[in-house]
């Protein structure tokens, strides 16, 4: 079986400072990986590099997606090929209507894959279904992208996009931060509904609680720009008890 994502000895600099110091991670289709680690350990940096954000200098290692060099691709190309990042801090885009954005983005991805564009009625139907399952009111979709959304609403909007675009690799960067307990359950249900044998998830979180809802196959601990420990879901419980101090030396 081919790995979906292979991060090999990745070294990344931001503004002359090395943030990732040789990070290795392999994700196979169907798997759910959790990444935990203290603030500033480089979790969002990893997610940004995978999504293709500018400003990160890869000084060593490689990232393969379905065997292809991901780092060579434009961000939109990655999205069209099935890479999705649910942002830790989704931006507000005033003046761009959410519905128009979703429709344009979905069609851009389909076009890049050589598929037919989705027609407006089919699109509307699909968005409504997904929005309903995530408890997202219709009037939220009428506003500008994320404009005036609460923190939790922004996160739910990310999950909505994930459900709509049906990516193969989902990276969720702290999707639980800012969500109340009910919203967390709804969002987690949305994520779980997308679990399939062809799709993989990388769930970045600080809290073991999320992993009660989205049960991971693997848990990795990141510290100072490296994966310092990997294990099964019980590793998250262990961390909850003992914290990250034990890894300070390892990193």
């Amino acid at each position, binding site marked *: 079986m081919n790995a979906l994502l292979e991060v090999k000895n990745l070294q990344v600099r931001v503004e002359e400072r090395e943030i990732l110091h040789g990070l290795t991670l392999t994700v196979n289709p169907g798997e759910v990986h959790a990444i935990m680690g203290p603030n500033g350990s480089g979790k969002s940096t990893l997610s940004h590099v995978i*999504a293709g954000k500018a400003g990160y200098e890869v000084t060593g290692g490689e990232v393969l997606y379905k065997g292809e060099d991901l780092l060579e691709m434009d*961000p939109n190309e*990655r999205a069209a090929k099935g890479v999705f990042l649910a942002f830790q801090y989704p931006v507000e885009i005033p003046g*761009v209507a959410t519905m128009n954005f979703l429709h344009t983005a979905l069609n851009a991805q389909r076009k890049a894959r050589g598929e037919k564009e989705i027609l407006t009625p089919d699109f509307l139907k699909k968005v409504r279904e997904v929005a309903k399952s995530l408890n997202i009111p219709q009037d939220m979709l009428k506003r500008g992208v994320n404009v005036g959304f609460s923190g939790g609403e922004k996160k739910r909007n990310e999950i909505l996009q994930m459900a709509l675009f049906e990516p193969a690799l989902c990276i969720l960067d702290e999707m639980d931060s800012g969500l109340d307990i009910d919203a967390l359950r709804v969002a987690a249900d949305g994520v779980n509904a997308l679990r399939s044998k062809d799709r993989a998830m990388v769930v970045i979180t600080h809290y073991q609680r999320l992993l009660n809802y989205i049960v991971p196959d693997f848990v990795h601990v990141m510290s100072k720009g490296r994966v310092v420990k990997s294990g099964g879901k019980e590793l998250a419980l262990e961390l909850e008890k003992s914290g990250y101090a034990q890894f300070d030396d390892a990193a």
Partner: protein
Amino acid sequence: MNVALAKTDTKTDTSRALGEAFANVRERLPGTGAVAEARQRALEAFERQGLPHRRVEDWKYTDLRTAMREVLPLAAAPDEAAASRAAAILKSAAVKGARQLVLVDGVYAPQLSNLGKLEKGLAVRTLRDALETGGEAVRNQLLPPKQSADPMVALNTAMMTDGVVIEISEGAELAQAIQIIHIASGASPAAMFTRSLLRVGNKAKVTLIESFVAAEGAKSYQAHDALVVSVGSHARLDHVRLMEDARDAFNISTAFVTVGAHAHFNTFNLTAGGQLSRYQAFVTFGGEHARVETNGVNLLNGTQHGDTTLFLDHAVPNGASREVFRAVLDDRGHSVFQGRIIVRPDAQKTDAKMMTRALLLSDEAEADNKPELEIFADDVTCGHGATTGALDQSLLFYLRARGLPEKEAQALLIEAFVGEAIESIVDDDLRDIAVGAARRWLAARG
């Protein structure tokens, strides 16, 4: 007027060339007696000043003396070939449902215009007709006794050839919009001098669209236009102007608008065409409690230069004005926005706000924003602001991470940016027209 100027043109050369040009064509220009005298006086006024240049404060950023290297010959009356080229472009320029009044190379084209079934309260005639046979009243409106000191307005007065004169009588509410379409058919470089008049009677209501376009393959030309508008008391005028002239054209246009008591004037200008353009609007509050919204967007790339200059004169108390201006500049595009608001000593309770923003898509693009408030009354609410910036990279990345290619992601953000000015268009149909024009520019960008 077939005078190509040497590279060393000076004020005197330019003026002399235009003076000769005027002498050559004056026989062809409509109007005798008082009209001819007014032309002569205007030409002299122009000659005293010459083409405006950077040391003329109001024209500081648009130096015509440098930019207008030659004076083009007055356009010939359009022949059949010109008319058919114009008819072809008219198809895409005509706004559905509107009444089209078409000027081809500066001359009214009856065969392309629609003067059928004039609604009650609407009267339309050509400028030529008004100058030749119109009474003193219409002449005084077309040639206001208190002439503007602007040299390009004076030149327009001297040379104006044709245009339309639209009168809407008291209380008439026109359901059908009126669209004046200026088409340059030009197979050869030429200059057009047009002037139109719109009189909106008290309590009347009308929508005016102005379009400037060129027929396929039109050569460099110079469009000189003036629009004189009076909006009666309790009247309403919705106005959209779309300048999509050919990429090597000049467009020098002036609007004079007087707004009556309790009247509402909502106007939007889009400058997306031309090599060099200037749109100057002089809006005067003639009666109390009038409301004016002037909005504008400049979309420029290549080496285009677009100047939008607004002059709002709060001459009476209790007036409200809003100006929202946006410029999007790519390549070496250069946008000028000058907005001057004068609040006269009597104009208490004036409420005036102006906001202008420019978006630079390239390091070589340039925006000059000059908002000015001159306040001589003490009980007023006035404010203005100006910003210049680039596209927000984090927003661009978000869109691209969702699958939008770079140009498409930019287009969404640019449309949102200009939408801030388009939003202020009150009429839904006009707003759609403005959005459509902005999208044409974005699509042409690739």
